[in-house]
């Protein structure tokens, strides 16, 4: 009987150790399960987000720049999703990005050409501003004598008084419609007679001496 408490306390000790050990193992298993579930949920969320982003890129509704889209696709690819749908979307998104990049380049090229054309027109306008001013001076001369002086001065710039003057009355699809061609002398006198200059010089042909051999103007209606 004296041995019983001793045995009992031993038994209790063993029981407690076993209980703790078993309890600990059970708790560890449920934690692992929870973690696994959480990881699966996180993965599903990641896939869903990737799916949404890829679709947005494909449909052009992401609102991101092409570089931002490419960065996002690279990130999604780095996740190595084992999902055939995601893989398919990645391929489509990469094509959309490629197209977007080409489109950006095309737009940039168009913009560059537009700027070049504007610069060319500005240069052309300032290039012929002197001739426009001289022609306008004939039209606004205060008297016949003053107009004749302006005409004589302007004629010095032409290779001949008979140099052709072409007047464009309309332009459509690269085709010019002209008024009946005239000569420099007749055109300058016309400006004196009608006392108005509703034209703009658009091109000037010159000979080796720099004299005008052909003048092309646009009629301003």
């Amino acid at each position, binding site marked *: 009987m004296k041995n019983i408490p001793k045995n009992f306390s031993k038994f209790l000790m063993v029981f407690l150790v076993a209980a703790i050990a078993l309890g600990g193992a059970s708790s560890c298993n449920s934690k692992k399960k929870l973690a696994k579930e959480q990881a699966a949920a996180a993965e599903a969320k990641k896939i869903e987000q990737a799916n949404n982003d890829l679709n947005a890129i494909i449909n052009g509704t992401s609102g991101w720049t092409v570089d931002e889209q490419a960065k996002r696709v690279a990130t999604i690819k780095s996740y190595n999703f084992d999902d055939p749908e995601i893989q398919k979307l990645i391929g489509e998104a990469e094509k959309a990005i490629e197209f977007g990049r080409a489109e950006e380049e095309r737009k940039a090229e168009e913009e560059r050409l537009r700027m070049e054309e504007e610069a060319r027109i500005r240069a052309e306008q300032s290039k012929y501003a002197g001739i426009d001013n001289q022609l306008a001076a004939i039209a606004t001369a205060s008297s016949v004598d003053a107009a004749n002086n302006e005409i004589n001065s302007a004629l010095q710039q032409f290779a001949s008084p008979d140099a052709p003057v072409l007047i464009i009355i309309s332009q459509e699809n690269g085709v010019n419609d002209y008024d009946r061609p005239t000569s420099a002398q*007749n055109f300058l006198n016309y400006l004196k007679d009608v006392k108005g200059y509703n034209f703009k010089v658009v091109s000037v042909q010159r000979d080796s001496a720099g004299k005008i051999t052909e003048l092309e103007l646009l009629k301003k209606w």
Partner: protein
Amino acid sequence: MVKQMKKLALIMIVLIGFVATSAIAQDNLSPERKQAIDSLALEKVRDLSKYISLIGSKDTPWSEANRVIDRAEELFMQGSEIGVSSLTRTEINYYTTRKYFERLMRLNYDKVEIDWYNIEYVSDLQRQPDGTYVGVITIFQKFSAYDKEGRLVYQDTTKKDITVYVKRKETQIGGRLIGFWDVLLGDIRVKETTI
């Protein structure tokens, strides 16, 4: 031989097609091109009004008036006539353009003012079977004549109709083929004359 004939026939078909396409393109003028032609014809009439004013003005030097007559004549089709009316007689006299301008230059007044206004189409330019566009532009002319004391001795207002012909033509300039619209004025008919 048959092969060559086939080739020739093909070339002919292409050429005919090209000519037909060009003709159709000219027939179907866009509203913008048609507007430009309408405006061009009106502009020619306005130019004529300025020429008439210059020719009639006693302030215009003789040599200038003669030069302007030449330019004014170029606006007309050959053989065109201009009607002249007066409040003092019922008949209307028609003169060839050259004769009209020369008479205008020699009018026996000390000062002459000729002003054209309300220049507008009374009949729009319509395409004719030969490709010419024909229309009628109406104008009002106010004629005022003064004696050497500056007194108004005669004045009338005449409504006149001018027939305009516009035809597409081509010419070579500097090795380039230039397509242009040739506007020519026809007869100027007097419609009514009032004080």
